């Protein structure tokens, strides 16, 4: 909580540094931490990735299986991104059903991938209204070091990019698995999520856990390969000026481009 003395001291120190254009880990304000992406880490899954973003570490697995479409969405396959913070990832995480923070995390990650239309869901249909391919992209935070939104999003995107999709043939209205034949998922664009925090009047990219503990507000902006802004989520207990938000949207595009290059190397 902001009100706690330790957080206040931390905030004072962070703000003092920000006034000189610096951050406690030496980064500039619009600089992300090092992003390390490793794919194929869970060979039993159809796709997987381990992502390190500074001290934050995520493992994502993708499972692909036959499914029924949602009612009224019979011409689309199923894509579901989840996220959970494992209790070993954070001294404050608790086992049990997800709390509101975790639900927000999962929904924001899902929305970024869904709204950019990363995957052409129409290509996942086997029999319209009856049988579709379902992709379940489950992210587990295994070390929590700030900015879980971006880290989970990157791990989910990398997990999808690493996927091999099994082939089902439809015989007599029944989808049948074709052994040994797989393809890449139908990728249309590369979503990149960029999260920024406001501390005082400063906007910083990719906040650490310490920075998050004393930030005023947070914003996550997801852009696609064409430079469109596709998903936004403001969080935190204070607000932004409209000017700050425009600045954030520009930063999201600039920073996002660098990350997208890292994704392109996985394709």
């Amino acid at each position, binding site marked *: 909580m902001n009100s706690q003395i330790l957080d206040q001291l931390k905030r004072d120190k962070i703000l003092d540094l920000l006034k000189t254009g610096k951050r406690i880990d030496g980064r500039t304000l619009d600089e992300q931490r090092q992003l390390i992406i490793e794919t194929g880490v869970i060979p039993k899954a159809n796709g997987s990735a381990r992502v390190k973003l500074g001290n934050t570490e995520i493992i994502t697995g993708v499972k692909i299986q036959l499914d029924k479409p949602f009612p009224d969405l019979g011409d689309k396959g199923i894509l579901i991104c989840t996220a959970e913070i494992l209790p070993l990832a954070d001294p404050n995480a608790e086992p049990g059903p997800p709390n509101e923070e975790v639900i927000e995390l999962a929904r924001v990650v899902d929305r970024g991938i869904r709204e950019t239309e990363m995957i052409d869901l129409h290509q996942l249909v086997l029999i319209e209204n009856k049988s579709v391919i379902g992709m379940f992209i489950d992210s587990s935070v295994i070390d929590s070091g700030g900015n879980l939104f971006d880290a989970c999003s990157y791990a989910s995107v990398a997990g999808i990019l690493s996927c091999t999709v099994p082939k089902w043939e439809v015989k007599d209205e029944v989808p049948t698995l074709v052994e040994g034949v797989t393809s890449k998922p139908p990728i249309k664009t590369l979503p990149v999520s960029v999260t920024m925090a406001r501390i005082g009047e400063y906007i910083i990219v990719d906040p650490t856990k310490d920075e998050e503990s004393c930030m005023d507000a947070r914003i996550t902006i997801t852009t696609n390969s064409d430079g469109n802004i596709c998903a936004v989520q403001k*969080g935190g207990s204070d607000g*932004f000026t409209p000017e700050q938000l425009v600045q954030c949207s520009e930063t999201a595009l600039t920073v996002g481009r660098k990350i997208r290059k890292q994704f392109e190397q996985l394709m």
Partner: protein
Amino acid sequence: MVKTMTQLMTEDGIRCDGRRLDELRNISIKVGVLKNADGSAYIEFGKNKILAGVFGPRDVHPKHMANPDSGILRCRYHMSPFSVTERKNPAPSRREIEISKVIKEALQPSVILKDYPRTVIDVFIEVLQADGGSRCAALDAASVALADAGIPMRDLVSACAAGKVADRIVLDVNNEEDQEGQADMPVALMPNLGKVTLLQLDGMLKPEEFKTCMQTALVGCKRVYEIQRKALMEKYFQNGEQ
């Protein structure tokens, strides 16, 4: 009624419900509609019908959630089973839990919590009938209900969405436009402090459109603010500027 994309807007920029691009739906707010709540408001915003009730500051249960240095704000956004086309299960969905959180965080900067350590202010929102933009309408009612409860506040919070429909930026997205349009951006503003306390986006906007869309929404927020203010005046000053 099957609606195709082309029907969302005429060539003259008239929308499917007859509105112009920058026109709000009908909004009416009544203050103090509940007897048990410490503060309350009822809003009709297009076809949205939403109740907000506020209790507090009061003791926190369970006690370990209390903050010795400040009051806390809790918020529940809930949809009635009959509020949507398909009957909704009354248990809170993940969507409702997320919206509860963003509404809480949108209201929080407006409420002065420091003076009430160890207490909670509970904001309960019930969507009786849902239309496009229900989270904005819910926020508008909740902020007025907080004021009605006599909670000390820095500003009201006024919310309104904008979006992109048929390639044009429009104010106050309705249900059809939300379902079949290209983008929906709910925004909440503290009008006097000039701070945006809620911003979400689903859809696809070019960077320039992003700015226009936000500006459009902010104009809407300011108009909503006038309606909120008038509703409060009507209750608290008999001669409200009707």
